């Protein structure tokens, strides 16, 4: 036994050694490249907004709390702040260790004299919201330096926080309507409370389009021109007819009924909850009926988003015609960096699809009770309203930013094109979809309702239950999660 343990230990050590060896070599390379990149951007930032930045710093320093606590679930916002906010200095580098060999300073940055602390809790199993809820409920009794100052939210649960007293009105921070006039309306709908008060801002827009497989379009329709394809999917009736045409040619129009859900659910005419009663909008029933017909005919499947069955269509063998998604999907999540994928060969095209929708996005909210009002105001202004910085974000991070003039200018820019989309400049499509998106029908309960509705209705589409049972299962599931509702 001893021998065995020893040999395993040895093998493990050796393997670790080898791997660590490789790792270290590559680390230095990457680190080098990363640093120089960041350096360039930083320099650019300071140049571009030097006067602004100076003023902001002076304002932020006076009478502000010593610590800015930011609650989030990943590093996206931290990266935006690091790369684009003038005056933000990163904490010590990831590789630096203290005398005990522990990493130090990984979470702290500085804005002037203010220490910026990130409280990152993964979103898995609702851990992020659980953590944030407890922190906000204890906000009043927390010491000044422990109070939540900024927290980030996603659209599905934004109203839960926005409709509470724990988030501050953007106006009360000193941000005027004129400051935010260039933002897309839908991004403000998401964080406007029931009294019409705006309580958060976002730097990004996530308008979605339909990405189609150019090869398949040429093969089936004889053309991969966005306008020609758009004609085939211009509304749901056309979309459903085209599904058959594609099926007969060996393609699924989309992988799963779950693909089109957002597009229907972003175009509802009533919210999920009316006067405490759960309400199923007509357009959502359209999704159910349309999808049921497509599933029963075998044109589409019912797999979950992000499962292997869903993502196989990123490759030509998957025989999937289209995906619904925003820019980040096609840029970062569709295997565009993998040889043989459709994206790698620039094989996707973008068209508006049957209806406009959005997917994703992160909103910045200020927590009531913060002692860093001026700093938060400046962060919001710089990151969500400053056109110079917005443009930088587009170029550096491939984000679709929340600034109409910037995006429209870029949409006209013939030098801007997407490699994944075969050289197409898709920004005009995105802009068109996002302009008339109306999200005034959101409710506090959207996360639970959207999740449970899809679960229950996919079960119906699979043929496991009839429609009435599916509805009953949906109602019960939502009421279990939200006991204050009825049906």
């Amino acid at each position, binding site marked *: *036994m001893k021998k*065995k343990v020893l040999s395993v230990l040895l093998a493990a050590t050796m393997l670790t050694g080898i791997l660590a060896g490789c790792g270290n070599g590559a680390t230095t390379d990457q680190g080098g490249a990363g640093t120089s990149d960041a350096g360039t951007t930083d320099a650019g930032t300071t140049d571009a907004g030097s006067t602004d930045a100076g003023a902001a710093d002076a304002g932020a320093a006076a009478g502000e709390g010593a610590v800015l606590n930011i609650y989030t679930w990943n590093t996206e916002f931290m990266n935006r702040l690091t790369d684009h906010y003038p005056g933000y200095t990163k904490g010590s580098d990831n590789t630096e260790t203290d005398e005990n060999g522990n990493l130090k300073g990984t979470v702290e940055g500085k804005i002037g004299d203010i220490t910026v602390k990130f409280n990152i809790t993964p979103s898995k199993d*609702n851990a992020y919201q659980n953590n944030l*809820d407890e922190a*906000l*409920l204890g906000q009043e009794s927390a010491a000044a330096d422990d109070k939540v100052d900024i927290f980030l939210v996603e659209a599905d649960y934004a109203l*839960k*926080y926005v*409709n*509470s007293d*724990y988030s501050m009105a953007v106006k009360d921070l000193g941000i005027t309507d004129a400051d935010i006039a260039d933002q897309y309306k839908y991004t403000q709908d998401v964080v406007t409370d029931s009294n019409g008060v705006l309580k958060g801002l976002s730097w990004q827009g996530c308008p979605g389009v339909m990405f189609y497989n150019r090869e398949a379009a040429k093969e089936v329709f004889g053309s991969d021109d966005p306008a020609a394809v758009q004609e085939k999917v211009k509304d749901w009736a056309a979309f459903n007819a085209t599904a058959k045409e594609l099926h007969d040619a060996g393609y699924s129009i989309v992988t799963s009924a779950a693909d089109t859900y957002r597009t229907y659910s972003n175009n509802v005419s009533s919210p999920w909850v009316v006067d405490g009663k759960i309400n199923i909008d007509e357009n959502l029933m359209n999704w159910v009926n349309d999808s049921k017909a497509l599933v029963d005919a075998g044109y589409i*499947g*019912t*797999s*979950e988003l992000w*499962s*292997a*069955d869903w993502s*196989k269509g990123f490759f030509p063998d998957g025989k999937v015609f289209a995906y619904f998604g925003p820019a980040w999907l096609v840029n970062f999540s569709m295997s565009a960096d993998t040889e043989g994928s459709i994206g790698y060969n620039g094989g996707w095209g973008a068209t508006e699809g049957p209806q406009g929708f959005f997917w994703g996005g992160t909103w910045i909210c200020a927590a009531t009770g913060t002692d860093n009002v001026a700093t938060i105001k400046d962060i919001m202004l710089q990151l969500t309203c400053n056109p110079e910085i917005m443009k930088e974000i587009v170029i550096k991070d491939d984000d679709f930013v929340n600034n109409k003039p910037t995006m429209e200018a870029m949409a006209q820019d013939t030098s801007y094109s997407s490699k994944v989309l075969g050289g197409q400049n898709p920004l005009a499509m995105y802009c068109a979809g996002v302009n008339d998106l109306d999200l005034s029908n959101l409710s*506090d309960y959207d996360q*639970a309702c959207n999740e449970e509705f899809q*679960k229950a209705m*996919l*079960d119906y589409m*699979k043929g*496991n*239950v009839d429609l009435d*049972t599916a509805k009953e*299962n949906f109602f*019960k*599931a939502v009421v*279990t*999660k*939200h*006991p*204050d509702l009825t049906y």
Partner: protein
Amino acid sequence: MKMGKRSKAVRFNKWGYIFLIPFLVTFVVFQLIPLISTIVYSFFEYYRAGLKVVGPNFLGLQNYIKLFSDADIWKYTGNTLIIWLMGFVPQIIVSLLIAAWFSDPSLRLKGQRFFKTVIYLPNLIMAAAFAMLFFMLFSKGGPVNSILVNSGIFAEAYTFLDHVWPTRILIAFMNFLMWFGNTTILLMAGMMGIDTSLFEAAQVDGATSTQIFFRVTLPLLKPILLYVMITSLIGGLQMFDVPQILTGDASPNNTSRTLIMFLNNNLYSKNYGMGGAISVYLFVMTGILSLLVFKFTNGKKK
């Protein structure tokens, strides 16, 4: 003898209390308050509407009435017990078999250390990671389907997790894989405590290894076997992560939703009232079933 023991023992008995102190102190500090509040809140309306706290308002038995007036609670109880049994029965059989083989010197199995190590390994993988792998392997385009289709067993790819029994079988199979190593180790550790001279005596009396197993090993293993049964029962009734992650709580008509998954959904809005009621129900049911197991094993003694 008895009298003498008693007078001697008095001096030492206080040590029974002293040795219990660490347990009791820890229990009182960290677990008692949450526990009592669980029971107390089951009689209250107490949840959150968004970030607003509703209650606690005293409701009497209303949470319980509401809980039991809906047939779902029995459905989830049934789901839980069925899936547990589907995993536990093979688990205890395979574990006993392997433990018996390993402790049977006449078999002289080679590579025992290898097997002993290997059977426990699946337990080292996080349930979440394990479920991800299962999901991938049994997906429509996954390797299991391609093997079944290519070998002509299935005409076309089968969506396992869209059907009631395949879903339950996969959950039970995963539970089995994750826990049979544990059970085997527990049983083997128990068997090591058995005096080997007993085996030898039985051999001298001409008993076969099957007879030895049933007449000597099993009775002596009883305390450990009882432990395995009770803790599996408790673990089974509290089954949560495997079905939750594998199905995403989206099994056909909720036929793989377990009691704790239901409880977990109630806790979405921190519903301590209904959550408390479900917990108390689960506690009572576990108690009754455990008593049955105790009675069953003790009854077999005579």
